[in-house]
């Protein structure tokens, strides 16, 4: 039976940049457990011989010609940015990581 630990929830929360309280860790661990268990039922009818479905429509090779199409102006691109400077998006400093 699936079992999602508090530590796993905390790890996922960190990856998703979500602040989660101690109580929420327990709450979400239980809820995620139920979700995973529900999804796992698919395994009872679909065995190894049935490939997992990633796309609902049976299409392949949808391509675009390599032709430039007009996009946004700099002003339009930055219009909804919380902060901008010198024609660029301004973001808070990035901690503990090196580009």
């Amino acid at each position, binding site marked *: 039976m699936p079992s999602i630990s508090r530590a796993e929830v905390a790890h996922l929360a960190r990856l998703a940049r979500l602040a989660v309280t101690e109580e929420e860790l327990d709450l979400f661990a239980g809820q995620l457990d139920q979700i995973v268990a529900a999804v796992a039922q698919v395994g009872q009818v679909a065995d190894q011989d049935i490939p997992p479905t990633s796309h609902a429509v049976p299409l392949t*090779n949808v391509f675009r010609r390599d032709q430039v199409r007009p*996009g946004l102006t700099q002003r339009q691109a930055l219009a909804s940015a919380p902060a901008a400077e010198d024609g660029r998006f301004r973001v808070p*400093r990035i901690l503990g990581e090196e580009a």
Partner: protein
Amino acid sequence: MTTPELMDYAEVVDRFDPVLGLEVHVELSTATKMFCGCPTAFGGEPNTQVCPTCLGLPGSLPVVNAVAVESAIRIGLALNCEIAEWCRFARKNYFYPDMPKNFQTSQYDEPIAFNGWLDVTLDDGEVVRVEVERAHMEEDTGKSLHVGGATGRIHGAEHSLLDYNRAGVPLIEIVTKTITGTGARAPEVARAYVSTLRDLLKALDVSDVRMDQGSLRCDANVSLMPSGTTVFGTRTETKNVNSLRSVERAVRYEMTRQAAVLASGGSILQETRHFEEASGTTRGGRRKETSEDYRYFPEPDLVPIAPARDWVEELRGTLPEPPAERRRRVQAEWSLTDLELRDLVNAGALDLVAATVAAGAPPADARSWWVSYLAQQANNRGVELTELPITPTQVARVIALVTDGSLTNKLAREVVDGVLADEGDPDQVVATRGLKVVSDDSALTAAVDEALAAQPDVAVKIRDGKHAAAGAIVGAVMKATNGQADAKRVRQLILDRCGA
């Protein structure tokens, strides 16, 4: 920051076996981005080559660039890879402002090309086969500018500024299998591999392959294991390796650094390190997230790619002659020594000489022009040979004018100067500058007579059979004709006039 201990290189290779893995990212030279119609040109004003799709705005949907897929398949074929019959894109999830979508659209366990190899020739002629694990399609990230810290470094920066012109530019990531058994030559093998790959990509005409502009980038994975053992050590991945020379230096530096750590009983941290061009060292960066942390899953907004086999075969037919084979052929056809061939390749002149030969010039003349006079001009201007404003056809025409006696070598250089100064084709420059060789014998004879009359003592010597003395008269005639006479012809006329 403390300077890490380094082990002497000879001792490193005596005690350890290096294991390499090279990841090369190549930006394709398509007109538009991977998943939208924004232009990919380098150097535009920030955020002027963007649209809702590459900015990750809600409701936008990606559509795959057909030419990017075609280029990916051609690269795969040129690397002797198998081409997937069916493959998908995947989302690589991470939070970093260089990707506005908060994920990079990449490929995970289904690369478009896999299981290939590339033969790499080292300086002494030894050939090393580098196995290629995979080549997959993905998109480039935006560019960040860190403000407030020292020299654009992220450390101490107050905030960062993002330009998304590059976000979404098609990238092909080419990953080698682990390269073992190269010992002391590991750094050289790494450089030779990237160099060979660069030549191949250039011949395929799929990328600018400019390491200085970032259209070709190499990440070097290096680890060490004690000599004679077979269990790989912990690896580091060095980024920011922006030239062929840096590839070699970065690998060598990591080997000496890791060896010192291991020898002193320490362990290697699995991390991304940053190559410092100025000092030739690497510095620790971020801990690598594990592949699990990226939570890859199939991209729901893009349908799978299933390249038809006849399309793949059609693309195979468009592959150029492999650069190494082409060099061997050219060397034989043009009768070049190994050194001459290497100079030609290093000068980036092979294509130019080939085109000049194709335009009718003898190979020796074409080579001589490009690797000497024109190389000098390019050097003076601080540009690549290919950037000189003269075409192989124009060079071939100049050579033809020399061959048929219309120009001397000296005049030919003046004609080339004229072409480089944007004065038109060689024939126009000859006409406007009046540079034709004076081939009218009566005019030359008059000049010879005049010079002989001016230096009667020399004339006497020549009549006495001292042919060497004719040089002084040749000089005078050349001066009188502004250098536009054929010196050999002038000399013959002098001897004739003196009855010598």
